[in-house]
């Protein structure tokens, strides 16, 4: 089992306390103290599940702004494109579909990067990540795709997640 380290506890505490502030939205001393105590208790118990890699990753400003750019610019554009495409299919009577499950290689190495990419793919209408496997050091996703236009492999990967993966590589590699 992974050991609880002090940087991991600090990071988890900051995240929990920020969330407490957002939910209560009050700055009375009593509430702040109660929030701090509860956040510290939660951080002590759950830090080793929450932090898997370097704890102060986002203190690097370049990575932080790349992450901000990804979540505020790259991803919403892809989301709107996929949504309009899916809405057209739905209003057109749901006839123009060709569903299938393809296997695509993924080059991201870190746990967080892979999780973020899988969730981004699932959140885009038209593609759902169903399984992740690793074969000989190379990670593969099995993706259910509503309109298969390319066979499995690099080509399908570029069509599904080319832009997303490029954006995420700047954040986590």
């Amino acid at each position, binding site marked *: 089992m992974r050991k609880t380290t002090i940087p991991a506890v600090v990071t988890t505490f900051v995240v929990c306390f920020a969330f407490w502030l*957002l*939910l209560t*939205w009050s700055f009375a001393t009593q509430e702040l103290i109660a929030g701090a105590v509860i956040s510290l208790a939660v951080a002590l118990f759950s830090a080793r599940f929450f932090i898997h890699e370097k704890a102060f990753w986002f203190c690097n400003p370049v990575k932080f702004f790349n992450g901000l750019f990804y979540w505020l610019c790259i991803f919403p554009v892809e*989301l*709107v494109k996929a*949504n309009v495409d*899916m*809405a057209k*299919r*739905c*209003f057109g*009577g*749901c006839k123009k*579909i*060709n*569903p*299938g*499950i*393809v*296997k695509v290689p993924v080059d991201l190495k870190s746990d967080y990067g892979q999780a973020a990419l*899988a*969730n*981004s793919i*699932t*959140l*885009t*209408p*038209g*593609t*759902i*990540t*169903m*399984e992740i*496997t690793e074969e000989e050091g190379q990670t593969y996703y*099995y993706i*259910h795709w*509503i309109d*298969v236009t390319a*066979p*499995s492999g690099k080509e399908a990967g570029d069509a599904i997640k080319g832009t997303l993966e490029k954006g995420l590589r700047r954040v986590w590699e």
Partner: protein
Amino acid sequence: MTVRIIADVLIAIGAIFALAGTIGILKMPDPYSRMQASTCIPTLGMLGAMLGALLIAIFCKEDAGTAVKIAVIALLILVTNPLGSHAIAKGAYKAGIRPEKKMDVDDLGRDLYE
């Protein structure tokens, strides 16, 4: 006043995408395609409605607490929705549910569940 109009337009856009997702759920031929269509609802359908509500809360009601709670709700839906989709799709596939019309490409069935 202009802010109110923009907010109403955003909510209407969200409603249109939610309608598209609902039509997809009712008319798509198999469970996985239905799940794909339903993803329209928690992404642009929800985001449109939440952005509209956020604008109203900030500029018309001028209530910071409500605005922050709306933002947190939108964030939580965006974070939890893919986890649910992924688990349901994988569970359905493991339970042996297959589309009636056979899929042209089915690498998951070929590799893991033969």
